[in-house]
């Protein structure tokens, strides 16, 4: 009996860790939604694109190599370098800023004052464009990502918990790193938004565009800033996920789980995104563990969506979202 208890505990801990991934994607989404009201369908693909770029840069892959070779009959494969993880990460962060600038200049700028649904459609287009671009630039094969994060089960935790409880917990070291990094990320985003002038400008724009303009804030600059931050958050998510299961295109599917997370946490709440991700991560693992066997398993495919549906019915503003009040 206690073994079942400990096993369930271990399952929920692992679920929490998986939830961190959902939280990270949802976090990038909330940032953009809060600032601009744009429902950014491409957030998950941003993570994929960031991870692909990171691997490519780190391993000295030549972008568009396949295309170049096909057109010019060459056979280029790589620059032949191997960058240290941290350098590759910094370079990728710069690429994400560049991407934010391009998105602002070639998409958002032309869509100001459009209906939200138009902007949403634009981000769907962006998602598929980026997915295709990632494919053409870096190739569609599954890639191994190793930026030097610890891998494997933590022996220390296993042996300590075995000594204490007579049950050794299997906790992935990478998951623990992911949790710590996510916590640091949220803390620094909060500090940035509360105490710096750009953070204040971001909050101002999120609150009232007209007033923001009147105090001299350039909305175009803010869009670039917020997409850069979202791109950086996507990069962090891409690193964690890529280190764990390789960089592959199915990431954009996992990223879809961010949607139920948002319905749970509310579209405008950063704590909501985090807690929502954790609840869904843990909930779906526990549900699969206890209820799965009774209903034939594979509950992880739908549990999150059903939970989100329940929330939509009973608490449409999410756990932490502001109460939705129609202004008359």
């Amino acid at each position: 009996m206690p073994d079942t208890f400990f096993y369930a505990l271990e399952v929920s801990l692992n679920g929490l860790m998986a939830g961190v991934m959902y939280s990270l994607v949802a976090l990038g989404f909330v940032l953009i939604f809060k600032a601009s009201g744009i429902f950014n369908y491409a957030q998950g693909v941003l993570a994929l694109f960031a991870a692909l770029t990171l691997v490519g840069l780190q391993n000295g892959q030549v972008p568009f190599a396949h295309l170049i070779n096909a057109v010019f009959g060459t056979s280029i494969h790589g620059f032949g370098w191997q960058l240290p993880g941290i350098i590759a990460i910094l370079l990728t962060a710069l690429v994400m800023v560049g991407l934010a600038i391009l998105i602002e200049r070639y998409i958002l700028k032309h869509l100001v004052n459009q209906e939200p649904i138009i902007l949403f459609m634009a981000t769907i287009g962006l998602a598929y464009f980026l997915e295709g671009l990632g494919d053409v630039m870096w190739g569609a094969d599954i890639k191994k990502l190793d930026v030097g994060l610890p891998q494997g089960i933590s022996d220390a935790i296993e042996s300590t918990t075995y000594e204490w409880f007579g049950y050794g917990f299997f906790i992935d070291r990478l998951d623990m790193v992911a949790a710590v990094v996510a916590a640091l990320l949220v803390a620094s985003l909060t500090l940035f938004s509360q105490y710096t002038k750009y953070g204040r400008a971001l909050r101002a724009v999120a609150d009232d565009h007209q007033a923001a303009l009147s105090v001299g804030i350039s909305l175009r600059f803010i869009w670039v800033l917020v997409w850069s931050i979202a791109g950086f958050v996507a990069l962090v998510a891409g690193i964690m996920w890529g280190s764990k299961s390789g960089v592959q295109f199915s990431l954009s599917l996992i990223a879809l789980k961010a949607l139920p997370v948002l319905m749970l946490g509310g579209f405008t709440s950063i704590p909501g995104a985090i807690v929502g991700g954790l609840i869904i991560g843990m909930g779906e693992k526990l549900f699969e563990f206890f209820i799965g066997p009774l209903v034939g398993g594979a509950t992880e495919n739908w549990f999150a969506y059903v939970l989100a549906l329940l929330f939509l019915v009973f608490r449409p503003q999410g756990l932490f979202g502001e109460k939705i009040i129609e202004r008359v």
Partner: protein
Amino acid sequence: MNLQDTPQDNPMTAEGYTTPDGRKIGGVLMEMRNITLRFGGVKAITDISFDIREGEIRAIIGPNGAGKSSMLNVISGFYVPQEGEVWFRGRKRPPMKPYQVARQGIARTFQNIALFEGMSVLDNIMTGRLTLMKSGILQQAMWWGRAEREETEHREKVEKIIDFLEIQHIRKTPVGRLPYGLKKRVELARALAAEPRLLLLDEPMAGMNVEEKEDMSRFILDVNDEFGTTIALIEHDMGVVMDLSDRVVVMDYGKKIGDGTPDEVRNNQAVIDAYLGVAHD
């Protein structure tokens, strides 16, 4: 004396003048030349010219729908006129976005109040100083020395404005919870925080009770007096306008029907007709 329509004919363009209460008014700070603004077929402003002088309190009055707010929006860059020129500090201004106008030292308030409702009073006023903050994005992100020092300096200035407008007791309150009169005051504080060359106030006293109006009048006079800020304001309450302003532009149906000192305007037949609702031909 100066009900002429074109600034070129304006006898006061060169030097400036002294007000009855002895304040020195300087040269032209802002000049609107033959501004016309249309919304589709509706002409909100028709060929209006006037100037605003350094250190002056300039009022724009007129019945509802006269085009007063539209004029303020043209000055602050929210509306782009189809015709006419805007001159600021002796230079013709190219078409500008509102945020660029703000960075030139023109701050404003809105008729319907545009505050950051979810942010505290203090944070709202701090946003007024964004254009004055110099440290770059990386310094800010890393909270390097300069960013921190800057924040402290600006906080001190903002605290002075808070004292000045007597809103210490609500410093930390989210603006959304404040009553209307205090919101108007916070909006003024945010505009003042930018240390503007020109302050634009769209009906700063609308919807206030007598006592609140008196407070607001006093603040406006004090701002002009202590900081030498040039102010252009729209106001419906005639008593207030007559008390506060040095010169008044009168608009009706998008046209300028009067321009001069409060006394001159009060005795202008076209103005009297407009306010008494005499039929237009």
